[in-house]
């Protein structure tokens, strides 16, 4: 969304350092994420792009030895501040994981779980509606509408991943984080998800970590390149892929290493 030609900044990270025990995983990351755009994070394995992604909804809290320093500001609010409530934060910032991880429950229950714990539906009808719109947005409705009460784990890999996306959007998050969402999927399922991502950016800000440079080029408007825990370069996808400033970026996208 452009306002007076200036893109709105949704997430603003300042001097983010991450440590696993004594080992530093991220060094002084400064990255702005634009609203209603797809931002791709690329880089070789172990470069810290997933770690950065997990900072944005504080999933790193789960890891005992992980410490995060610096500011990550979302809606004028530092999420690393003590007063930040992770439950509220994660309601606003959804996440889709590398491997499809539906709950071993029915398709309906998978979607209704988030709205239930956040008290978003007052009645069964409202809940049915949330489930339907979420599944429609995730382009899964037509395939599963007759078997909403069958287990979600019985779906194919691509369907499971779209179910996970539907689950993530069921609570109407502002931001959706995707951690290599297609790495476990075949090309057809991948194409479906990519199409979906393009559709979703109308209502959500999307950050996607990917190993596939082609995918980054296809789906994203902005790209950040990580290497050895540092953000080497970021900017519009066009620029990064066609005219990178940094030699390392150039080497990586041309496939000379990584």
């Amino acid at each position, binding site marked *: 969304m452009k306002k007076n030609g200036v893109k709105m900044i949704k997430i603003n990270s300042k001097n983010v350092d991450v440590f696993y025990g004594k080992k530093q995983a991220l060094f002084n990351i400064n990255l702005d994420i634009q609203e209603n755009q797809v931002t791709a994070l690329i880089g070789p394995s172990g470069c810290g792009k997933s770690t950065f992604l997990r900072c944005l909804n504080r999933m790193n809290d789960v890891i005992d030895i992980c410490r995060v320093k610096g500011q990550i500001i979302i809606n004028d609010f530092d999420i690393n501040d003590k007063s930040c409530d992770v439950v509220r934060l994660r309601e606003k910032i959804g996440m889709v994981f590398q491997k499809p991880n539906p709950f071993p429950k029915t398709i309906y229950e998978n979607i209704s779980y988030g709205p239930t714990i956040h008290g978003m539906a007052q009645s069964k009808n409202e809940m049915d509606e949330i489930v339907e719109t979420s599944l429609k947005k995730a382009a899964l409705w037509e395939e599963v509408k007759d078997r909403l009460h069958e287990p979600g784990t019985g779906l194919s890999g691509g369907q499971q991943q779209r179910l996970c996306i539907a*689950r993530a959007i069921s609570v109407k998050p502002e931001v959706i984080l995707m951690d290599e969402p297609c790495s476990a999927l075949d090309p057809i399922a991948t194409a479906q998800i990519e199409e979906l991502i393009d559709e979703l950016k109308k209502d959500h800000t999307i950050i996607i970590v990917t190993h596939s440079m082609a995918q980054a080029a296809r789906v994203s408007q902005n790209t950040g390149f990580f290497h050895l825990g540092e953000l080497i370069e970021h900017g519009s996808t066009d620029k990064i892929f066609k005219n990178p400033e940094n030699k390392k970026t150039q080497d990586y996208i041309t496939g000379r290493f990584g």
Partner: protein
Amino acid sequence: MNKNKEQLLNKRYKAEKRFRLYGQSAIFMALLFLTIFIFKIFSTGYSAFQKTWLIVPVTFDAELMMLEQNPSKEDLKDADYYDIALKSMADLDPNANEDQENELKRMVSYFFEREIKRELLNDPSLIGKTKDVYLTASDDLDQVFKGNYPRDLPEDQRRVTDYQLKIFDQLVELGKVESKFNLSFFTYPDSREAELAGIASSFMGSIFSILVCLMIAFPVAVLAAIYLEEFAPKNRFTDFIEVNINNLAAVPSIVFGLLGLGILLAVFQLPRSTPLVGGITLSLMTLPTIIIACRASLKAVPPSIREAALAMGASKMQTTMHHTVPLSMPGTLSGTIIGLAQALGETAPLILIGMVAFVNTIPGSPLDPAASLPVQIYIWAESAERGFVEKVSACIMVLLGFLIIMNLFAQIIRHKFEKKWS
């Protein structure tokens, strides 16, 4: 070079063949032992499910029973049955002298009086009439009839006299000895007389102990496991606790018995020989088993499920209670059942807390004195009477049946409710 390779290959094949053979013989040995064991138990025990009855004509003589005309139900209950019981036994041989009459009386159990009384209470119109009544044969005659008694021993080494055998053989010839299903084995409590001994008291004792054990051990163990696995920080102290839980699982059960004796009975003054104390002692033993099973099945829940829930904005508690714990329940429950099955077969700690006492009443609550099935086996195995030999095996059969059912149940729970994830 090529030949060398050939030899090497042959050697490998032979080694594999040998290994298979070792494995098969190991399995064969295990099956052999099991078969011998089961065959031995069944061949000695199956006869305990049959009981020998003597059919004796009893004359319900109102005068001997000290009954007035038109007696009420109460009168019938208070009447004296000893004399008619004695008389009907003595009448088996009209020419018996006093000693022989005594021997005749000992051919049936000391319940004969009660059995005759029951007959009359069922049908008060029998007064003044004569009826054939089924009387429990003494355990020795029971064994004679089942063919387990060496009749050819010299008389002074036998507990049945020649005279008793003679009368018994006459009765057999007349068809007055019958073998029927031994219901009293299941409905009677323990007794000093083998023919009257049953497993009702120890069975109920076992049930009560296991219930007490379950009610204490399950909630404590599951809470401990959930806390340790999901909430507690991983540091030296929790490592130390984990090591000690594993140690606890390895403590010999008799030590728990001593603990029960020293703490529950001596300090807290809980009633001795009761399933309450037995259950608490057993729960100490079962606790680590359940904790370990529960932690293992919590660990087996894929972290991706926890991440999915957390990323949806569920709190730690919601993640645990809505997702992790339900998914771990099949494993926890089957672990619990296996722990309880272990507790069910436990003898040593129960002996220490006094559940080995002779109990001839059926307990109605965990606060009544009781034995338990394995302790009952122990008590009977110590008894000298021949009649108890088959009872020991029969009791083992009941216990084994119980354990097999419990383990089967654990398997079913595991297979039926365990969720499969991609």
